[in-house]
């Protein structure tokens, strides 16, 4: 019945990277997910040793193959894989023998399941709590949590509105994880972080020679998200030319990579988020009205932290426990709690989390008092209702700073004092070197 099935169609239907290797451990077939993970086409790597293509930490990888080929048993092992974007991702490797009809051993099938999604969600839950219904007594948050199964059950576009740091990204990922697309990729695109020229290539991919420096094929995020979900953060910052191209993807489910006339069909669910008023952008002619209505099939707004004051103690408790990492949990005294409750938190839950992480470092495990909190909290301006940006130190000219900005300044000052020596700067800040590296990436320094 299936003897005429095209092998590539079969392999592409598996939601993980799959490679077929011969008994000499050379790659003989690879699906689309495998190409996305390795950044190589099958044509390039056919005949190359699987060790060099998969780049796993299971060393030597060939030892696992040998066990499979000799015992003809399936072996499953967790490890990690270095992908084309120089990211090390946790992965589960399942290697099974492949036999012909006559029982001859043809080789082995390697399935590489990317576990970074699961690990990310666990970490996100522990770290962020930005969107976590269990960490909320707020009726609006409870209502959103109740709607989650409905949002997850459909493929309709979803538009999430909310201020920065309210958890739009975590909510989008939670919807993806709860949907039938959960086993397929979840790709995040930050429209505000990439210049227009790069965004087009990142999103739609390009053919070799499409522009100067385009030496190899880039699949593009839309293609990588095939069968999964693509999340556009800050969609309001997407250039108009990109909006037109995205609209055609939404309408036709296909697009042409840069420098290619060949259409690529994709099946993706689109979730978009914005901290700007999209309707106003439409009126100003900065956002396409047709795209706005196309994205706005399902819509929800995440409340700011000011609108969920009742959650502040819960969130504080959660973050203190998390950042204490199993050590004795320091208590927050009532004065400090009062200051936090009075603060306007323009950076919302993310700002609260970052502030508590820093405060815990300063308090050195002792009880947290208001002296451990950032000074700008005690500025009278910080108590005013939110007007776009938070008050901060050194803002005599009226320009206010958020905690993120303050932290960025602290890092730059420390680096300046340490004359660029990161080890020294990390010591000055009281952080581990890895924390400094993470923060440097986070702040784009």
């Amino acid at each position, binding site marked *: 019945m299936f003897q005429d099935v095209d092998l590539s169609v079969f392999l592409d239907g598996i939601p993980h990277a799959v490679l077929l290797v011969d008994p000499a451990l050379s790659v003989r077939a690879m699906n689309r997910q495998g190409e996305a993970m390795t950044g190589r086409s099958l044509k390039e790597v056919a005949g190359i040793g699987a*060790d060099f293509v998969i780049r796993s930490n299971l060393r030597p*990888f*060939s030892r696992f193959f040998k066990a499979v080929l000799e015992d003809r048993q399936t072996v499953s092992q967790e490890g990690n894989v*270095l992908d084309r974007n*120089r990211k090390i991702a946790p992965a589960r490797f399942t290697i099974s023998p492949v036999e012909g009809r006559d029982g001859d051993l043809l080789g082995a099938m390697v399935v590489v399941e990317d576990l970074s999604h699961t690990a990310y969600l666990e970490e996100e839950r522990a770290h962020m709590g930005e969107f976590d219904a269990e960490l909320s007594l707020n009726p609006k948050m409870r209502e959103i949590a109740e709607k989650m199964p409905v949002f997850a059950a459909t493929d309709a576009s979803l538009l999430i509105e909310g201020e920065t740091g309210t958890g739009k990204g975590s909510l989008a990922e939670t919807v993806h994880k709860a949907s039938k697309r959960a086993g397929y990729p979840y790709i995040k695109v930050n429209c505000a972080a990439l210049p227009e020229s790069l965004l087009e290539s990142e999103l739609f991919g390009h053919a070799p020679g499409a522009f100067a420096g385009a030496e190899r094929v880039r699949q593009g995020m839309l293609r990588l998200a095939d069968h999964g979900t693509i999340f556009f953060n800050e969609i309001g910052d997407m250039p108009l030319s990109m909006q037109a191209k995205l609209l055609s993807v939404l309408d036709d489910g296909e697009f042409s990579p840069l420098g290619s006339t060949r259409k690529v069909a994709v099946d993706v669910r689109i979730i978009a988020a914005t901290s700007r008023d999209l309707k106003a952008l439409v009126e100003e002619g900065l956002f396409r009205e047709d795209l706005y209505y196309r994205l706005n099939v399902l819509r929800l707004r995440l409340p700011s932290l000011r609108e969920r004051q009742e959650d502040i103690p819960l969130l504080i408790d959660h973050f203190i426990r998390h950042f204490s990492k199993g050590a004795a949990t320091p208590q927050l005294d009532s004065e400090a709690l009062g200051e936090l409750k009075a603060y306007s938190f323009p950076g919302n839950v993310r700002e609260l989390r970052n502030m508590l992480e820093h405060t815990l470092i300063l308090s050195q495990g002792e009880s947290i008092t208001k002296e451990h909190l950032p000074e700008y909290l005690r500025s009278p301006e910080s108590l005013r209702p939110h007007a776009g940006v938070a008050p901060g130190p050194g803002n005599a000219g009226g320009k206010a700073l958020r905690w993120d900005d303050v932290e960025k300044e602290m890092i730059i000052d420390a680096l300046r004092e340490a004359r660029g020596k990161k080890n020294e700067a990390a010591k000055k800040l009281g952080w581990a070197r890895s924390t400094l590296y993470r923060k440097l990436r986070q702040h784009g320094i």
Partner: protein
Amino acid sequence: MKVLIAITRDEIAPRFDLAVEAIIAEVTDGSVPDEPRHLLLSEPSGDEFCTLAVRESVDVVLCGGIDEMHYDYLSWKKISVVDGVIGPYAEALELLANAKLKPDAILPGAANEEDGS
């Protein structure tokens, strides 16, 4: 130009952070005049290779896969990284000496080793 290559046997190691062996070679005017120097670590360490590259004033690090942290560190130290290369290191060295090696290259002699790093 001084080059460090993370290797496994005669091949470029698939992962810089998991390699235990490297060579350091000088390339001049399209040739590799001297026999490369072999280095062996007691355990895999990308950090150790980075320290070595800086200490030895290496100009180029040639490797298979390299993670973002080590790549950024080497770039920050103004060391060029040619990564994603698959194949025998001697062949890669020749191509590098003749300015013909590009990142992500799969060299004609890319062997099908039965045992990688």
